[in-house]
């Protein structure tokens, strides 16, 4: 074996060894609670920085009908198989009632017909999935702000939680049920609506029939589909008498519970 091939082999081995070492170091760091704790702390800094430099009342860009995607992708649950939902769907949601409760003065139960009589808004917006793709759609729905006013918020109300009909992950403790939450600034934003129409038609099942949240300016997973109940709470990480988190795993949403940003603004 010549000196050159020997050296090449040595360099090749060293390179492979170093890259393996580097990768396993990165994987170990990812699994390390201290390191991931630091990453998570900085996620909080990013949220604060974004909220500092951006106008929280700013409207998301709206588009014209020609921009509407013909191939709007449905992600997450596309067809809930949960019994309660299947029964409602079989009846074309005639028995559906949206529950609004929690820290409100007057809990509500609203049928779809009643929701359609609420102050509404129509908007053509871009849906940005955390995976990287975007689709543009037209949404019509009841504005969340007036609905919350109708129920009347109690003074300690801080967050609005959306409980959904679909189970996205089968778990033993029930934390696989989809849910999401937003703060009151986003809840009262004029573009935050409970959509019952998409592209001028009744909201299809794949996109969250009969009711889905549109909270523009945030990533796709915040736009909870199959919304059954709106609960107003003070804390997202509240625990019960047994020390169990009341809402999912306590991070304010199905995907936030699984490592994604709660504020979903980036």
């Amino acid at each position, binding site marked *: 074996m010549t000196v050159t091939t020997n050296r090449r082999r040595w360099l090749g081995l060293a390179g492979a060894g170093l890259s393996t070492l580097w990768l396993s170091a990165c994987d170990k760091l990812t699994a390390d609670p201290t390191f991931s704790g630091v990453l998570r702390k900085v996620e909080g800094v990013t949220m604060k920085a974004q909220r500092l430099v951006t106008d929280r009342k700013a409207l998301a860009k709206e588009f014209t009908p020609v921009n509407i995607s013909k191939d709007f992708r449905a992600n997450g649950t596309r067809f809930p198989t949960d019994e309660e939902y299947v029964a409602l769907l079989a009846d074309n949601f005639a028995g559906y009632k949206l529950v609004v409760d929690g820290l409100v003065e007057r809990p509500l139960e609203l049928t779809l017909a009643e929701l359609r009589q609420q102050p509404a808004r129509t908007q053509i917006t871009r849906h940005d999935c955390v995976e990287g793709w975007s689709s543009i759609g037209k949404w019509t729905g009841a504005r969340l702000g007036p609905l919350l006013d109708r129920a009347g918020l109690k003074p300690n109300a801080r967050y609005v939680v959306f409980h959904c009909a679909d189970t996205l992950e089968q778990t033993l403790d029930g934390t696989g049920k989809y849910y999401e939450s937003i703060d009151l600034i986003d809840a009262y934003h004029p573009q935050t609506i409970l959509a019952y129409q998409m592209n001028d038609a009744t909201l299809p099942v794949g996109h969250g029939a009969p009711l889905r949240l549109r909270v523009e300016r945030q990533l796709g997973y915040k736009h909870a589909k199959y919304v059954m109940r709106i609960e107003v709470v003070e804390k997202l990480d509240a625990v019960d008498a047994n020390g169990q988190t009341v809402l999912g795993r306590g991070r304010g949403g199905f995907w936030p519970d699984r490592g994604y940003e709660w504020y979903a*603004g980036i």
Partner: protein
Amino acid sequence: MADNVSSGTEFIQRHTIVTRLTHWLNVLVISLLLMSGLQIFNAHPALYWGEKSTFADPWLAMTSVTVADVPRGITTVGDYQVETTGLFGFSGKPGMGEARGFPSWATIPSYKSLADGRLWHIFFAWIFVINGLVYWLWGLIGGHIRRDMLPKREQLKPGHILHEVITHAQLKFPKGDEARTYNVIQKFTYLAVIAVILPLMVVTGLCMSPGFNATVPWLTDLFGGRQSARTIHFISAGLIVTFILVHVVLVLISGVWNNMRSMITGKYAIQVQGDRP
């Protein structure tokens, strides 16, 4: 040449401590950003132009198809398709292969995890931005940019540029007094990287943020929409990788120990051609 200078090796202070620190921090941070970025890309390994995704017609896509029970990786660029099994679209150890854009050795974490990839990416994006700001502030105030990076008038003469391109292509590197400063090709390249490509990464990255987008919609419009911004982010990353490859090769062949010493200790040796007795 002054007659009091004798021939031999002279050590000059080539890089200040700020240049050296920001350089090596960038080596680490850009590697981590690149690899966590590829993890994020893998969540949807397709790119589009414009505001929205046209799923049936991406300009670049890495997909996996099964032909006769054998999974293959296919990379599509425009109208062209190439099989890239093992690298793009489908990769992994024999029997453990999976559909993924970039292979596991190129991503952080090595396994699929968009959530972790994003945490890494945004954390190191902060360090990248702070590091860049330190470099730029110091460079502007301390005069590094004006003194060392901006080409001198005589360097901009077409004849000189042509001469530099030709000697560079012949891999003949400046010696003696000419080696005291960056040559014009180095200056153009470094300026393109520090003033255009690296800032472009930050801006196109921000343009993908729906929260930022609502506040500064014109910025995303400037790039032609969110999907265009994502595409430009990817292309710029590719340009950075290209720069790094060329940069490392040139460092290796133009005097690797001298170059490394100058970026670690600051000291750079040049051969002085003085009067010989």
